[in-house]
């Protein structure tokens, strides 16, 4: 089933879905494996697997450091692809790749997509690939059944949002504020207005990320978006308290 239908089917049973994020190889694939199992057991609906890149320009300090440590520890793109296939087979939820253009281009766009399809990956997020530069890649991804997830920002105009939606599939990733990942976001009326603009510009499901940390944040988004995204905060939890703390943290976010 294509990603959008999967999300709609999941969403018909829940008020809001939860998507989490993992940097592959940080601190190791073995720990990634344990954390992903804890996430799935806690009821996470989708997981973003970030293939590390040495220059992650859209990421803040927590994910930046995770990328660097993973690369220094020797993680390779081929190992990320193999690991993704293993996770897809082990867990019944959709997995996505998040990475930067150069990883895909260096691998070869078509070869990368073919290997992602073979691994069972459902979508791909490239934050440094606007449609002006990547229309061909985005179309190729759609044709191969890997949903290209495009990003809305608070600075995007309505016309721009509609243009982006024309290149996207699966869902739209709405960045909750200006800036990079991992800093606090104010969940307030301005954010609600912005999400209203996002909703008006596309019929695709909306995911909201950047700065989500608490149960209150998820509750704020319920009714305004389809998917809440937690990225840096789970990495902080693993760094601070170890992989076993992920389950309780996510259960708390979901009020379960």
């Amino acid at each position, binding site marked *: 089933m294509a990603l959008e239908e999967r999300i709609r089917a999941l969403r018909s049973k829940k008020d809001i879905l939860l998507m989490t994020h993992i940097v592959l190889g940080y601190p190791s694939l073995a720990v990634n494996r344990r954390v992903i199992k804890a996430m799935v057991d806690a009821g996470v609906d989708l997981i973003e697997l970030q293939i590390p890149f*040495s220059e992650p320009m859209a990421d803040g*300090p927590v994910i930046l450091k995770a990328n660097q440590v993973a690369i220094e520890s020797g993680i390779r793109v081929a190992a990320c692809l193999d690991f993704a296939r293993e996770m897809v087979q082990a867990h019944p939820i959709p997995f996505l790749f998040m990475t930067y253009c150069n990883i895909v*281009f260096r691998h070869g766009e078509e070869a990368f997509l073919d290997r992602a399809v073979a691994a069972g990956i459902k979508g791909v997020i490239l934050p440094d690939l606007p449609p*002006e530069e990547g229309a061909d890649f985005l179309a190729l991804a759609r044709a191969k059944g890997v949903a290209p997830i495009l990003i809305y920002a608070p600075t995007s105009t309505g016309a721009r949002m509609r243009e982006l939606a024309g290149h996207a599939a699966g869902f739209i990733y709405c960045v909750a504020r*200006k800036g990079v990942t991992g800093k606090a976001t104010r969940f307030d009326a301005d954010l609600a207005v912005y999400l209203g603009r996002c909703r008006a510009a596309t019929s695709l499901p909306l995911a909201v990320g950047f700065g989500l940390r608490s149960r209150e944040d998820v509750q704020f988004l319920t009714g305004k978006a389809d998917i809440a995204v937690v990225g840096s905060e789970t990495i902080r939890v693993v760094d601070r308290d170890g992989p076993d703390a992920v389950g309780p943290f996510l259960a708390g976010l979901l009020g379960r």
Partner: protein
Amino acid sequence: MNRQGYYGRWGGAFIPEVLHETFRELNAAFAAAKADPAFWTGYVDLMATYSCRPTPLTHCPNLSRALGGAQIYVKREDLNHTGAHKANNVMGQGLLMQRMGKTRVIAETGAGQHGVATATMAARFGFACTIYMGAEDVRRQRPNVFWMEKLGAQVVPVTDGSQTLKDAINEAFRDWVTNMSDTHYCLGTVCGPHPFPEMVGYFQGLIGQEARRQILTACGRLPARVYACVGGGSNAYGIMSGFLDDSRVELIGVEAGGLGLDSGRHAARIAGRHGQAGVAQGYRTLFLQDEDGQMQDTHSVAAGLDYIGVSPILADLAEAGRVRFAAATDQEVLLALDRTMKAEGLIPALESAHAFAHAFKEVGELSPEESVIINMSGRGDKDIFTIAHAFGDPSWQAFIRERGREYGA
């Protein structure tokens, strides 16, 4: 789809969506400024009254005689205010910021020259200023950090990655995506997403326009060759742009050969054919990277040349065969610096000395009726600690020890 800012297959704007409107605004402001003749006139006037332009073209009779080849001329970008060609770009972008109503400027810096120039521009125009600099470069270029801070800028050492220029660029982008409403990112070289290569090249083009006029006045004919060092490529593109249409003028870019092209410790992307096509830091060019697409560490004795990428404009000119690329090793650079100081009383920056080093190797091939221009992109006094260390100067080391004792070391 409109693919803007391409030079052959290089360039583009691979930017996060949050910066889309910021780049739209910047493109519009730059296009309007370029179309306004008063803008360029105002820019040239500002550079004449604030930054010693036009900078002279200096004949080097002693070096020319000693090397037994073409007459050597040096374009004196070291005489710009703040000691490098960087002033040309920052003052131009400062004028653009005024038109756009921005009140805060951020910049990255490697050697520190772009940081000092940006801090100077911010002081002159009354902008708040933050400079990102790799922690390794902060250590190497302490005198420039001192000046940036005295000029009123906040210097932020970047401790990510290799702690050099590429990491400072990433950090500046991170600041910009948070603060773009009042902040302009004054990128320092002819790299980065469109329109930065074009915009920086436009302002640095002043070097080439002047140099072409000056050599014709001095020699009555065009030079056989123009040499310039290439980090990002702004001084090189600046001077070369004046001669691009003169097909008989050979253009040579000199990269950082570091410890040698086979050592793995250099920053020669084109000369060593080690650069591979890639996309990072918002644009497509030749980067020093591994098979997985991860950027590699670079090395040069000159902090300003220690960069993973290269201008998309120069990558295209290299591919078209219009610019020839070479590399000079750290050791060759120090020898060239020594020779230039003793023969002509000029003190080139370590970056610029790369161009001198390679020119010295080649001028003997030419006749004394011909001329070459070497672009002296900056002055070397900022490098006093690095140069003194490299020469192992005992009296300087004694002085530093004495100063250390005074400060309780």
